[in-house]
């Protein structure tokens, strides 16, 4: 790699080489639907010249030096047109071998053992009342990632990823409902153990939803559980803080300017790559920058943004270790890691008090944002009537304006929890990238819920 890098004629050049072994299992109902074992070996070269990026990815390694030439040639075509003096945020060169110190290696567990456990879980789902089918998904990956750049950095990281979903499907008279429990970790296969109670709870919710009315559309006070609140903060503020969407847009920069108030004094939001065993965290990002914990909002006020080396220098801020690529086929872009709302001291009971009509939203199907608006779908929800949890309702989708909704968070709970799921985050063509979220329960005023008004 170093020899190939020496050929670079660009201002900056990097090489990434990646080898991943992956196991995927899918069970549906009484059937094993798919068991597959995949090997992915590939690499890329990225080069910067006068503001233009060249990028070449490949599976054939026979001529790495030629790939460096190609990426540099592309960067030159661009740079000669742009003639921009864009440097990268300076990082001290580092040579490091990050041996995966995993608690329990998922890739070392025999397939027979994984299949036995997944089938036991599947049997629990299918044994629950009124459950007609199941949806079990399991994934593990073991990656060796080599990264070298023209600054003199050489890093080899060993990574692990394990994630999955155990879902229950209930069907009655052409109505099908589903609910699931998920797991995920970057260092411990044991997250898959002991899910029996969660699975039964999910199966009960799927069944209950068969008899649940569709929620009535309108504006409500809502309480989000930690899972949903995590999705909310990821969609509603995390994406806005990704500085590669801000660094050349003066108006967006103004909107997210340090010091702008978007919430109450209680609101702290951060994104971190060093929280613990969460998917998407690692020692270095895909530009070789150490991951760290970055506050985005502190005391309700914007205090930081998420950066790559390019966006950091353009905005005159420090790097944060947020440049990530889903794999060698893509260049790194600014992405989240574990995005959190910090806990405060309110109890769930306090949040319920004073709500005459509201919705308690538990569990997330996923969400999306376009910058100013966000939306997300819940997998399970209950009406709140006169300060107490009431009947289950289905098809609950929430939406709102990002800025107004952050201001409308009026209570932040004390029961912080992380959420790792089998899904991931999408940006550009890079999806699903492993990420995690963390939050306590939060209460938000005036949230719009879609649906018919009776």
């Amino acid at each position, binding site marked *: 790699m170093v020899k190939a890098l020496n050929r670079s004629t660009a201002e900056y050049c990097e090489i990434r080489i990646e080898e991943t072994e992956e196991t995927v299992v899918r069970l549906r109902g009484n059937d094993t639907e798919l068991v597959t074992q995949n090997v992915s070996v590939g690499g890329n070269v990225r080069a910067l010249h006068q503001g233009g990026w060249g990028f070449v990815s490949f599976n054939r390694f026979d001529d790495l030096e030629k790939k460096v030439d190609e990426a540099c040639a592309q960067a030159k075509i661009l740079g000669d047109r742009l003639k921009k003096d864009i440097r990268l945020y300076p990082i001290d060169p580092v040579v490091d071998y990050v041996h995966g110190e995993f608690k329990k290696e998922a890739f070392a567990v025999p397939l027979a053992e994984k299949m036995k456990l997944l089938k036991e879980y599947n049997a629990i789902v299918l044994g629950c009342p009124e459950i*007609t*089918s199941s949806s079990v998904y399991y994934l593990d990956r073991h990656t060796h990632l080599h990264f070298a750049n023209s600054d003199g950095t050489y890093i080899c990281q060993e990574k692990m990823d394990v994630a999955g979903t155990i879902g229950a499907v209930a069907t009655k008279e052409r109505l099908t409902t589903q609910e699931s429990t998920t797991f995920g970790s970057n260092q411990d296969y044991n997250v898959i153990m002991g899910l029996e109670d969660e699975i039964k709870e999910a199966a009960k919710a799927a069944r209950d939803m068969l008899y649940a009315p569709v929620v009535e559309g309108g504006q409500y006070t809502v309480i989000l559980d930690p899972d949903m609140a995590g999705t909310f903060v990821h969609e509603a503020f995390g994406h806005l803080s990704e500085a590669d969407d801000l660094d*050349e847009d003066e108006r967006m920069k103004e909107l997210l300017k340090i010091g702008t108030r978007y919430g109450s004094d209680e609101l702290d939001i951060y994104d971190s790559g060093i929280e613990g065993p969460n998917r998407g965290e690692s020692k270095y990002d895909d530009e070789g920058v150490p991951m760290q914990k970055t506050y985005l909002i502190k005391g309700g006020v914007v205090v930081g943004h998420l950066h790559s080396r390019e966006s950091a220098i353009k905005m005159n801020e420090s790097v944060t270790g947020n440049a990530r690529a889903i794999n060698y*086929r893509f260049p790194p872009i600014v992405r989240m890691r574990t995005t959190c709302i910090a806990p405060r001291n309110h109890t769930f009971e306090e949040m319920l008090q004073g709500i005459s009509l509201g919705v308690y939203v538990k569990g997330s199907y996923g969400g999306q944002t376009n*910058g100013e*608006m966000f939306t997300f779908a819940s997998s399970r929800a209950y009406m709140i009537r006169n300060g107490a949890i009431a009947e289950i309702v*289905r098809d609950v989708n929430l939406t709102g304006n990002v800025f107004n909704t952050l201001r409308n968070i009026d209570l932040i709970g004390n029961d912080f929890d992380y959420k790792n799921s089998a899904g991931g985050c999408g940006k550009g063509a890079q999806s699903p990238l492993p990420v995690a979220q963390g939050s306590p329960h939060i209460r938000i005023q005036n949230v719009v819920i879609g*649906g018919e008004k009776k």
Partner: protein
Amino acid sequence: MTRILESAHERGAEATLIISESKDTSVSFDANRLKRIEDTESYAQNLQVIKDGKLGVAASTRVGGEEELLENAMNVAEFGPSVGYVFPNPERYGQPKVFDQRVADVPIDQMIAIGEELVDFMKSLDSSINGGAQVQKSVSQVGVKNTKGIDVYSKKTGFVIVAGFQFVEGQNLLSSWDWQVMTSLEYDLKALKDRLGEDFEIGRKNVSIEPGSYEVLFTPSAFSDIVTPIMVCLDGRSVMRGISPFAGRLGEEILAPSFSLIEDGTLDGAVGSRPCDDQGVPCRRTSLIDRGVLCEYLLDLESAHRLGRRPIGTGTPAGARPNNLVVSEGDVSVSDLIGGMKRGIIIDQTMGAWAGNPYAGTVTGNIALGYLVEDGKKVGRVKDCMFSLNVFSHLKSNLLALSKETKNLGSLILPYCLVGGVSISGRD
């Protein structure tokens, strides 16, 4: 026979091997300027083996990794699904016209020029607009072979142009995107510019609407959110498990008589077309829903076997995947559809409408880009609200019209769709 297939056969397995190789080149513009050139060369082998009635699947991008690939597939077959099918014998395969040498030969300068023309146009709308574009070409080849003697080879080109902008005024963000996808070089930059220009003109004026029930014209891109649950419910595997509300209803009128849906992997010029599917079954044209009547499911070999149907060329080892889905066009022009709306909403871009329960048919999403229409004219942008409808009941009872114009979204070819009685919720 290829060596790896011979080895599989010697070990008592039947096997299908898919070798794909492609080269993509793209130029990207961000924040009104050319930013990146990317070249992606990829190579992959995918192997399916059936040993003692059980299926094992493995994939590898390691060049020369055949032995490891076979070993992995044989290992997982021990734990894989029991299948009731065998790999097919060779048949006649069509060769849809999906390769255009002009695409393969497009120089990078021409791709840059296309992007520049689009970005220059967006900049001309307002100097503080944030315009982006991407122009991408791809050349790919796929070989499908099996131990029964199938040996099918195909080549394809792809050309994609994406353009859009974000425009910020105070805390008001307007973003609009459009794209064209094709296998040839028949792009239309004027159409892209006209559309983005119109969004910039009308999209900056916000209008508020009261929650309630509205007539809604879904553009092809928004209509794809409505078609998705139908696609999910047509999947043979969800039918064979009884999850799909379409199970056991072949021959029944499930949607309005104006609605027809066709799967067609043989269409010339469509990006999803190919000679055969991932299981070696020839692609063909199949009516799934004909004038509202359910005719066929999306099938792979296993679901076809269990449902007693003939496979239609939409198979993968893990289930069905359509090649090109086409909703038949109507006979009214888009301008006449809009002109005929007294008070309604056009929904063009949605957010979060994919998240939900497709088997229940409920589609709820945020209106990311939508317009209020009064007396046949777009009067302003509606935002901060959600639309909600039930696909099965609305497309059966409230489907008012389909346009004669269609748009190719990739592997979905759709018209505009006018639906009545769509719930819009927002601030009270």
